[in-house]
């Protein structure tokens, strides 16, 4: 009988929202691969892909089709179940993050108030951290199951890198949480949206830089792309993968980038807040749509930043990576946390 007590319309609403968000993030990830290539090209004085469709806009579809049509190879010596589990976990973990990101305020449709967030759980950001650190299992399992020494080394690198940088990331996050006093992403965004309130970047510039560097390391982006360092480890953990399993790994990286951009936008840049505009003066539905656009703009800016950095900075050496993580970022994050705590205490008198 408890089943019948469920709000079935709410279920339907959330299902539709999940479908929209998952497919939208996949679509955006698809075009992020394209823009990655375009950004790389213009930064290197090239035109980039421009043959498939007008201005090359069909290129990601062609790439996807190519990946699907390729032969699916599972090496004989690979551990089959884990070999398949690896990319699946990487993709799942990447996509699960989007559940707690507040995409916008609520819209009113058919007399119902629909939150544009799949789940506003009160431990939102902790959930993100939990899921993101699960993403490293995708790399580890994939690298181990390949039964290839390069893949294994890449997996080890990926795991140790993720662990080291998650620490600094968590510590720089604590400073934000001290200001907001809540773990729910929605609350954090709403506090930044409130009239007269500033975005968290104003209070936490150092924290943001630390978080950004760590996010880049978590996404395995250059300059921290040691797990897939082409010139040392061939392809790293996805060396033995082919067809769509490889595609999933590559895709997961882009979905991770989008999600970490969304998290950073929500934590430090006001999420779906439109700067210098009081959203409460607008009709709620229009405000919600503008909010989505605002968040997407912030995400696109972050994605461009990710790409811009990738095509500028060479890769860290492994010991440099560890030095930076443990000897620079973590102490800085601790200092930032203590300073924030001290200021908050002093303000409270």
């Amino acid at each position, binding site marked *: 009988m408890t089943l019948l007590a469920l709000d079935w319309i709410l279920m339907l609403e959330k299902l539709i929202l999940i479908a929209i968000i998952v497919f939208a993030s996949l679509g955006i990830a698809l075009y992020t691969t394209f823009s990655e290539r375009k950004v790389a090209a*213009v*930064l290197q*004085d*090239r*035109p980039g892909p421009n043959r498939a469709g007008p201005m090359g806009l069909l290129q990601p579809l062609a790439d996807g089709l190519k990946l699907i049509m390729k032969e699916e190879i599972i090496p004989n010596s690979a551990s089959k179940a884990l070999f398949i589990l690896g990319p699946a976990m990487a993709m799942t973990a990447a996509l699960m993050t989007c559940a707690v990101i507040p995409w916008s305020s609520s819209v009113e449709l058919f007399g119902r108030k629909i939150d544009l967030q799949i789940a506003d759980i009160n431990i939102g950001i902790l959930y993100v951290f939990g899921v993101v650190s699960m993403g490293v299992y995708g790399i580890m399992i994939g690298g181990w199951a390949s039964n290839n020494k390069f893949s294994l080394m890449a997996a080890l690198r990926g795991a140790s890198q993720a662990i080291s940088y998650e620490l600094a990331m968590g510590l720089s996050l604590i400073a934000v949480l001290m200001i907001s006093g809540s773990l729910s992403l929605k609350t954090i965004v709403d506090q930044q949206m409130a009239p007269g309130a500033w975005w968290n970047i104003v209070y936490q510039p150092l924290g943001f830089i630390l978080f950004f560097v760590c996010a880049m390391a978590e996404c395995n982006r250059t300059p921290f792309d040691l797990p897939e360092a082409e010139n040392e480890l061939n392809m790293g953990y996805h060396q033995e993968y082919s067809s769509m399993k490889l595609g999933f790994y590559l895709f997961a990286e882009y979905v991770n980038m989008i999600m970490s951009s969304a998290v950073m936008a929500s934590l430090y840049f006001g999420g779906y807040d439109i700067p210098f505009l009081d959203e409460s003066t607008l009709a709620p539905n229009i405000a919600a749509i503008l909010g989505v656009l605002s968040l997407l703009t912030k995400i696109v800016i972050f994605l461009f930043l990710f790409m811009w*950095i990738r*095509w*500028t*900075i060479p890769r860290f050496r492994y010991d440099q990576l560890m030095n930076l993580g443990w000897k620079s970022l973590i102490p800085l994050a601790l200092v930032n946390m203590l300073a924030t705590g001290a200021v908050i205490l002093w303000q409270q008198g």
Partner: protein
Amino acid sequence: MQALTNRSKAVNRDPMTFMERLYLPNIVKGMAITFSHIFKKQPTIQYPEQKREFSPVFRGLHVLNRDAEGRENCTACGLCAVACPAEAITMEAAERMPGEEHLYREEKYAAKYEINMLRCIFCGLCEEACPKDAIYLSETFAPANFTRKGFIYGKDDLLIPNKNTAPEEYATAKGAAR
């Protein structure tokens, strides 16, 4: 030690200063450089549609020349084959029969003329050796082929189309018309 060029720079092995150890200022500097490249002119040539002009001295695929009346210049004297360092040229001579004066300029002509484009090094010595202005290196290059045999170019591949009857094909073979 005396430097060979004036371009050498001494490597600075001083320990990094605080500003350098911050990384970020230099990273920002580097990012400014890459960003400025967005606005630079791209040197790309969109290949199949646009083609880059070869220089007039480009040594490409060979053509066998005709004279102003469209008659073949080659007399199959074999000097080109002798001059060829890669030994890529073979030919067989034949005598011009009465009534063929409109085809061949002199009494002797090449019945068979073959150049193996896999052996040819495009040095242009055949062009220099030819006393009759019969062989030239055009401004085109040998297209890819699937078989080795396909790279042995016979007379029908090499002989330039008649300028008077087929001017367009003539220009394509010469390669300078773009």
